[in-house]
């Protein structure tokens, strides 16, 4: 178990290092930072002084080490737009985003998993087909189309709910539904196929054959085993709590991290973009790590085989 844990931790660290490297490489490839920040007609001496001051004349690997050092001290640069620290700018948007993504996650779990389990247990009935039809539809309707259709019906035509902004809880209803529906569809599809896979296993047949009531077979044998692959996709959903609402926040003018990201990309505010990229990578890696640990707890076999197969 300890070996499994250290291996997983190592992988998480490697992924973070790769993301930081990615940001560094992309940042350097995108052009000379001196020319990017100074105006085009700045005198050459000023550019040279700027390069010297920021260490841009040093070898790349020294810059790389320095970059790492700054990031691990929490120095993620300043926004070129309003001069504040990028990290402050980003973190003050997080609560607004969570106000959408957490209820949406509840919808995804609350509808997606039961629908998937039910469809699998009643395979090839009309309920199953209906659930799958809805799931495919929910997956193929892009969130901005669904969001705008909801606005058209509930805000424009019926006038029941506001179409955008963040003034009261009523403003959150449409974006939360928009976010929740797509995720619930994905989760229902996934849960159904995981359940079907498990229900075809020999141990399910043995359990039924020895006289265990069907409800108990489902509860004690099928559900825990189907939970294992489903946890992965839930982990991905938890990991994208911070950045999973980019499009929806834009549709509903919701002032969260996603909206900030879109504006920052449009303005090429690189410090903010890089800060969000790293933040998302961290949450994703932590979520994946928790999933891996949960895997170990849910499935004792994985502890041994994963550690052994890992070198």
């Amino acid at each position, binding site marked *: 178990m300890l070996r499994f844990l250290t291996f997983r931790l190592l992988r998480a660290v490697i992924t973070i290092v790769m993301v930081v490297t990615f940001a560094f490489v992309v940042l350097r490839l995108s052009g000379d930072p001196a020319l990017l920040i100074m105006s085009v007609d700045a005198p050459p001496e000023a550019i040279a002084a700027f390069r010297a001051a920021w260490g841009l004349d040093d070898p790349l690997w020294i810059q790389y080490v320095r970059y790492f050092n700054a990031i691990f001290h929490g120095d993620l640069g300043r926004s070129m737009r309003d001069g504040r620290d990028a990290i402050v700018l980003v973190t003050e948007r997080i609560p607004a985003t969570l106000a959408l993504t957490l209820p949406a996650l509840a919808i995804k779990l609350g509808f997606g998993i039961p629908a998937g389990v039910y469809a699998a247990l009643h395979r090839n009935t009309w309920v199953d087909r209906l659930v799958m039809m809805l799931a495919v*539809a929910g997956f193929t309707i892009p969130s901005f189309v669904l969001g705008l259709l909801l606005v058209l019906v509930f805000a*424009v035509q019926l006038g029941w709910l506001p179409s955008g902004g963040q003034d009261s809880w009523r403003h959150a209803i449409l974006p939360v539904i928009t976010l929740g529906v797509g995720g619930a569809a994905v989760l229902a599809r996934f849960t159904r196929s995981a359940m079907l896979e498990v229900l075809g296993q020999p141990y399910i047949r043995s359990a039924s054959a020895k006289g265990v009531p069907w409800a108990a077979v489902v509860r004690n044998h099928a559900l825990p085993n189907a939970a294992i692959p489903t946890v992965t996709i839930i982990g991905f959903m938890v990991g994208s709590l911070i950045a999973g609402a980019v499009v929806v926040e834009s549709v509903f003018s919701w002032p969260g991290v996603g909206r900030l*990201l879109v504006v920052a990309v449009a303005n090429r505010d*690189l410090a903010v973009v890089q800060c969000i990229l790293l933040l998302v990578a961290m949450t994703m890696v932590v979520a994946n790590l928790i999933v891996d640990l949960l895997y170990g707890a849910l499935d004792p076999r994985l502890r041994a085989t994963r550690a052994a197969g890992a070198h």
Partner: protein
Amino acid sequence: MSDIALPAVESRPKPRRLPVPPLVVFGITWLSLMLAIALSADLISPFAYTALDLRNRLAPPIGFGGPWLHMLGTDELGRDVLSRLIVSIRLSLLIAFGATLIGAFVGTSLGFLAAHFRGWVEHIVLALVDFSASLPFLILALSVLAFFGNSLSLFVVLLGFHAWERYARIARGLAISAGAQGYAAAVRQLGASPWRIYGRHVLPNIASTLIVSMTLAFPEIILLESGLSFLGLGVQPPSTSLGNMVGYGREYLTRAPWILLAPAFTIVLTTFAVSLIGDWLRDRLDPTLR
């Protein structure tokens, strides 16, 4: 030919052909229609997609009081929505096809490299797979666009990197197991080069699984492209794609919803159609599923 084939099929009950489900027939029909529109865009679009008709601005579609001239209505500048839709379908499909092919090519090549060399090459490929599987692609794409700015070719290549890791995983796994099977070993013993083994022997044997992955990735790429274009960060005006049209139409949601609804339904029906075909193909072709 059919006279001989028919009784033979009837006498053998085993490989019975399941009828194609009606939804899949719909999917294939819709996709063919879209392809036909994309291929003949210049011939069938009634107006140039940038042509202005200032006397018919924000004209509603036929049936809602609009003139016969503009079947799906016009936008704020009097541009014909149908013509713009046709041109958008062409660009969106072109991007999606291009990106899907790039992803499949890059992913499969890296998967084969990993399977062929093993060792540290495989470790690097797997680390890259881990890396791209651990980040939401939208965020990755947005940061690249922020750093490099936008151009159509960069955009297509960028979208091509969506889902490459899936092809890499599949290609690596299948190539390793193919290597353990007789045919690959036999060709190798005959002195075939790795190019020949992977290109002529392994690839055709695993193609069906890869094609299924492509049909599953294709709608995702359409959704990504239209999402980014909707945000104003994808295809840039004066070019137009389906997502652009929705983003533009959003401003006129209350006054002229047709600007938005026409491309929105096209996106939904196209991704729906390809997903149906993909699911059906997977059930039919994928040997890893029973």
